[in-house]
């Protein structure tokens, strides 16, 4: 798309979210949508992050708390399953990690440069300190 300055912007100009005909966007998944160049979906805010969330599917219970509370539509859920994270649109706020209810958490924040393999290798184990304390009390 040709970018225009403020004075080259025609009065009454319209930015279209999609190229071509669309019907029932509410039931069309993002991968099937004909996004246009002026839809912010085609842009990225990845450079806002200093930390990124990483996802370990071994511990995930598909509760979808991360999906409903993500402010940036960056948790990808398909067929009621958590699939992954959209790193083009994630701003690294960390809400998904805070609301994750599993033990250990199935989402954790890591430095932006860390690769996924090494992060999963060093994933913390289940925190059993609470369970042990309860056993002692008994």
């Amino acid at each position: 798309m040709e970018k225009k300055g403020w004075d080259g912007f025609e009065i009454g100009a319209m930015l279209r979210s999609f190229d071509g005909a669309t019907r029932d966007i509410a039931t069309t998944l993002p991968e099937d949508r004909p996004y246009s160049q002026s839809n912010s979906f085609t842009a990225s805010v990845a450079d806002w992050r200093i930390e990124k969330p990483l996802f370990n599917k071994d511990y995930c219970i598909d509760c979808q708390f991360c999906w409903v509370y993500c402010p940036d539509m960056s948790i990808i859920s398909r067929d009621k399953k958590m699939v992954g994270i959209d790193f083009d649109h994630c701003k690294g706020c960390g809400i998904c990690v805070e609301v994750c209810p599993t033990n250990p958490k199935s989402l954790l924040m890591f430095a932006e440069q860390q690769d996924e393999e090494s992060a999963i290798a060093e994933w913390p184990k289940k925190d059993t300190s609470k369970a042990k304390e309860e056993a002692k009390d008994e």
Partner: protein
Amino acid sequence: MSEIKKIKNLKEFSTSADRFEGANLLCPGCAHSIIVREVLNATNDDLILAASTGCLEVCTAVYPYTSWDASWIHIGFENGSSAVAGAEAMYKALKNKGRLKQPDRTPKFVAFGGDGATYDIGFQWISGCFERGHNMMYVCLDNEVYANTGGQRSSSTPIGSSTTTAPAGRVSYGEKMMKKDMMAIMAAHGAPYVAQVAPNKWKDMVAKIQKGFAAEGPVYINAMSACTTEWKFAPEDTIAISDLAVDSLVFPLYEIINGEKLNITYRPKNIIPVRDYLGAQGRFKHLFTKQYEYLIDEWQKNVDKKWDYLQRREEASV
């Protein structure tokens, strides 16, 4: 079309395809987009949206991008509501004349505004729309401050909060006025449905939005939107702060039907002291000094009084 979308649980809700896109410029951890997502995903019908000037508007329509996958308009600070009301009037007129191109589709009309656009600047426009009885929904994203322009006080700012135009210091404890009771004002218009919602209680919120869509006439939704920048807390704590606000009854969740019948829709199991809610935010930091500590007790008293009033109204069914 026009049938209510079935959302039994969160897994079912998560199959929704968002019509609000990422790479908008809202702050990381902003509750605005959580609210917008929950409103938009509550229906599969077509949407006709408007936004008043505010964080949501300036961050989602930055040239050359738009973050909306539905018809969306922005005109001015005050008239998000009347823009949508105009579209709704046109829709009705075309329907009566039988000139709708797709008569089987039943679009929903929604206007979004911040608390500045709702409580102060757009107030008479909203009042007009509600008086004329347009079939629309108005969602106020209530973050209790003019966050877009740098944190000036609005008439939604609660007492004791430090803002850039009512700063706390040696001689002042910040904002001196109580928060305006917008819910009561909108209910007094005789609107069929008025409700207060919080994004952290997603099920309560989605149920209320769907009730609002089903109602004939103007619907007012007051949505608490925790502002990480102006309330001064870490971005990952948005949901935790919202939980505190709801469980301490600072933001009680209730609905008023036809301006007459009040229902409390969420009663916290453990009511937490208001002190915990205030202490979690930087904007109330100065209340925890000897000089201003008496305000915390006053806060608690006000919240208790309001909760007592709501309970009595619910019991008396008025």
